[in-house]
C-alpha cells in the first residue's frame, strides 16, 4: 500500500463487480473481500485476489465474525436468532413426502457461505450455528477459548488463499514442481482480529470482548500487522464514555491499525457534532495507530489531514453501511457522483444547474463538472449526452417502472471510482485549508442552485468540522 495517505481500498460486494477492480487494478491501493464472499465462491475469489494483489495493490479479508453476533432489528427487538445469515432455500422433499407437482419445499436455513465459514473457524461460530443462537460475550469468558478463536480467524486469513488454490489440480501440480510459486502467493496486508458489533444495549460488554480479541490476536506474534475493527452504532459518536474507551484502550491492545465502522454514519447527513467527534477520534487514535474508515466517503478521505490512513467502500455505493441487514430492497439506481458536491445526485437535478453555472458545452462540462475518462467519452457532442448516465429502460415485460440500464449503471460506477481515485490523489497533496476552500466554493456555486440547495448542506458542515479539527490538531 502506498506510503502516502489516504489510501482507497475497494470492497468487493459480489463477483459481478470484479470487472471494475480488475480494470482499475493499477490505480487502487487495495481490495477487501468478506470471508462470506470467499466461502460462497472460493475459487473465483482466490483467483481474483491472485490477479489483483500485485504491485502496490494489497488485499484484506474481512473475517465477518460480527455476523454471528447480536443486533437490534428495525423494530427495536434484540435479535440473537442469526436470522440474517439465513436464507429461504429450496430443498428436495423426501421421497415419501413427494406430491404430484411439488418436489421441492422452501426452508429457512443458514446460508452455505456462513455455515462454511463457521466450520473453518470453529468455536464459537460453529457452536452458534449448532445452537441457532448468536455468540454472546459470555461464550468467550475463557482466555484459552478466546485465544483459540483469534488463532483460527488469523489462520483463516493467512492461509485461505493458498488452501483454495492448492485445491485446483493444475495449480497444485505447479506448486509441487515449483514450491517458490506457492511461497510467493500474496499475504493479506494485515490480519483482522475477530470482532463483533457493539450492540448498544450491552455495548460495554461487547467493547470489552472486542478489545480482548484484539489483544489476543496481537499476542499471536504473526509476521503480519494485526488490525482491529470497531463496529458500533452511530449514536456512540455522541457517547463520550464509549469514545473514551476507544481512545484509551485501543492503543494498548498491541494492534497496529484500526478500522472504524459506525453503522448508519452518513457523512452527508450527520450533524457537525458527530462529524467533529469522528474527526477528533481519528486525530487521537492516529497518534498511535493507522486509522481507516471501513465504509467511508469524501469527508473521511479529507480527514487524512487529521491522520486518517485510508477508507474502503464499494464500487458503486457503500460509503456507509448499516450493520442491520436490509432485506428485500430493490436494486437502487446508481446515481451520478457529482464531484463538486462529493455526493451522488440524479441526472436531472444536475442538468438543471448547467445554464446558471455557465455550462453550455462539453468543454465546459469537463472543466466544471468532471473530466474523467468516462465523462470525456460520454459527454462528447453536446451536453445532451450527459443524460445517458441516467438512461432507463423497462427491464422485463412485468416491470411497472423503468429501471436504469446496466450500461448507465456501469458508466456511473466507473465514473465514481475514477473520480474517487482522483480525489485521493488531490487530497494527498492538498492542505486542509485548500480542501475547506474547495468545499466552500462548491457550496457558493452548486449549493445555490434550486435543485441542489437541500442536497448541499453537508458542505459547510464538513468545512467547519475539518476547520475546527485542523485548528485543534495544530495546537
Amino acid at each position, binding site marked *: 500500500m502506498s506510503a502516502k495517505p489516504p489510501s482507497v481500498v475497494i470492497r468487493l460486494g459480489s463477483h459481478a463487480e470484479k470487472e471494475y477492480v480488475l480494470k482499475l487494478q493499477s490505480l487502487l491501493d487495495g481490495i477487501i473481500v468478506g470471508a462470506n464472499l470467499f466461502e460462497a465462491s472460493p475459487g473465483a475469489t482466490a483467483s481474483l485476489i491472485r490477479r489483483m494483489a500485485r504491485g502496490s495493490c494489497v488485499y484484506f479479508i474481512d473475517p465477518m465474525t460480527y455476523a454471528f453476533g447480536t443486533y437490534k432489528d428495525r423494530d427495536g427487538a434484540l435479535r440473537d436468532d442469526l436470522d440474517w445469515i439465513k436464507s429461504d432455500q429450496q430443498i428436495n422433499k423426501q421421497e415419501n413426502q413427494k406430491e404430484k407437482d411439488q418436489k421441492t419445499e422452501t426452508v429457512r436455513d443458514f446460508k452455505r457461505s456462513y455455515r462454511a465459514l463457521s466450520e473453518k473457524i470453529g468455536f464459537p461460530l460453529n457452536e452458534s450455528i449448532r445452537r441457532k443462537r448468536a455468540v454472546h460475550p459470555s461464550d468467550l469468558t475463557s482466555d484459552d477459548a478466546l485465544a483459540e478463536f483469534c488463532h483460527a480467524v488469523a489462520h483463516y486469513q493467512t492461509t485461505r488463499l493458498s488452501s483454495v488454490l492448492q485445491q485446483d489440480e493444475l495449480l497444485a501440480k505447479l506448486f509441487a514442481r515449483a514450491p517458490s510459486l506457492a511461497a510467493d502467493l500474496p499475504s493479506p496486508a494485515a490480519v483482522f482480529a475477530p470482532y463483533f458489533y457493539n450492540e448498544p444495549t450491552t455495548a460495554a460488554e461487547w467493547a470489552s470482548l472486542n478489545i480482548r480479541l484484539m489483544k489476543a490476536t496481537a499476542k499471536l506474534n504473526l509476521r503480519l500487522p494485526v488490525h482491529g475493527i470497531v463496529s458500533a452504532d452511530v449514536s456512540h459518536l455522541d457517547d463520550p464514555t464509549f469514545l473514551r474507551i476507544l481512545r484509551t484502550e485501543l492503543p494498548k491492545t498491541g494492534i497496529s491499525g484500526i478500522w472504524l465502522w459506525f453503522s448508519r454514519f452518513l457523512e452527508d447527513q450527520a450533524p457537525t457534532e458527530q462529524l467533529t467527534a469522528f474527526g477528533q477520534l481519528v486525530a487521537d487514535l492516529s497518534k498511535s495507530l493507522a486509522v481507516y474508515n471501513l465504509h467511508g466517503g469524501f469527508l473521511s478521505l479529507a480527514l487524512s489531514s487529521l491522520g486518517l490512513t485510508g477508507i474502503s467502500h464499494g464500487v458503486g455505493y457503500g460509503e456507509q453501511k448499516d450493520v442491520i441487514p436490509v432485506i428485500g430492497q430493490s436494486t437502487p*439506481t446508481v446515481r451520478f457522483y457529482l464531484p463538486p458536491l462529493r455526493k451522488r445526485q*440524479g*441526472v*436531472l*437535478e444536475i*442538468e*438543471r444547474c448547467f*445554464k446558471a453555472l455557465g455550462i453550455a458545452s462539453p468543454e465546459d462540462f469537463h472543466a466544471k463538472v468532471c473530466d474523467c475518462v468516462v465523462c470525456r467519452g460520454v459527454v462528447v457532442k453536446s451536453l*445532451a449526452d450527459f*443524460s445517458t448516465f*441516467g438512461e*432507463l429502460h423497462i427491464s422485463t415485460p412485468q416491470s411497472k*417502472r*423503468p429501471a436504469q440500464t446496466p450500461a448507465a449503471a456501469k458508466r456511473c460506477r466507473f465514473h465514481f471510482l475514477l473520480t474517487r481515485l482522483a480525489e485521493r490523489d488531490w487530497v494527498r497533496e492538498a492542505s486542509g485549508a485548500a480542501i475547506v476552500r474547495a468545499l466552500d466554493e462548491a457550496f457558493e456555486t452548486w449549493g445555490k442552485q*434550486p*435543485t441542489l440547495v437541500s442536497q448541499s448542506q453537508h458542505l459547510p458542515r464538513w468545512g467547519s468540522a475539518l476547520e475546527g479539527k485542523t485548528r485543534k490538531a495544530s495546537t
Partner: protein
Amino acid sequence: MTFRSERQLLDPVSAFLARQRFPIQDAEIPFYESRIDLYGYSEDQHLTLAVELKLKNWQRALKQALLYQLCSDLTYIAMPLAATRNVDRELLAAQGIGLIGVGDSGRCRVLVPAELSPETRSHYKEAYVAFLKGRSG
C-alpha cells in the same frame, strides 16, 4: 367537493388545459425517476406544458416542477384552491413556475402564470412531443 387524492385534481386540470389550447395530453409520463402527473402539447403554439398535482406539500411539488422545466416550456403546480394560500407565490414566480388553484367545483384558476422556461432541453421536449403526437394519431 373535497379533494382526497391528487388523482381527483387530474380531470378538472386536464379539461382546463385543453381549453387553454393544450388538447394533446397524457398523464403519469415517466421522466427518469419521477412521473409527470400531466403533460400537454399545443400543436399550434408548439409549446409543451407539465403539471405537478399536489394536495398540500407545495415545496415538494416545487422540487419536481423545477426538474420538469427541463422537458416542458411551461410548468405548473396545481393544488386545491384552499391549499394555495400557504404557497410562496413569489418563490414560484421567481422560478417561472405557475400555480393553478382548483376550486371545489372543479373550476381552475391560474394564480401565478408560468413563464417560458429557459431551461427546456430540446432533446427531452422533442421526445415527448413525438410520443404525444404518435399517441394522438
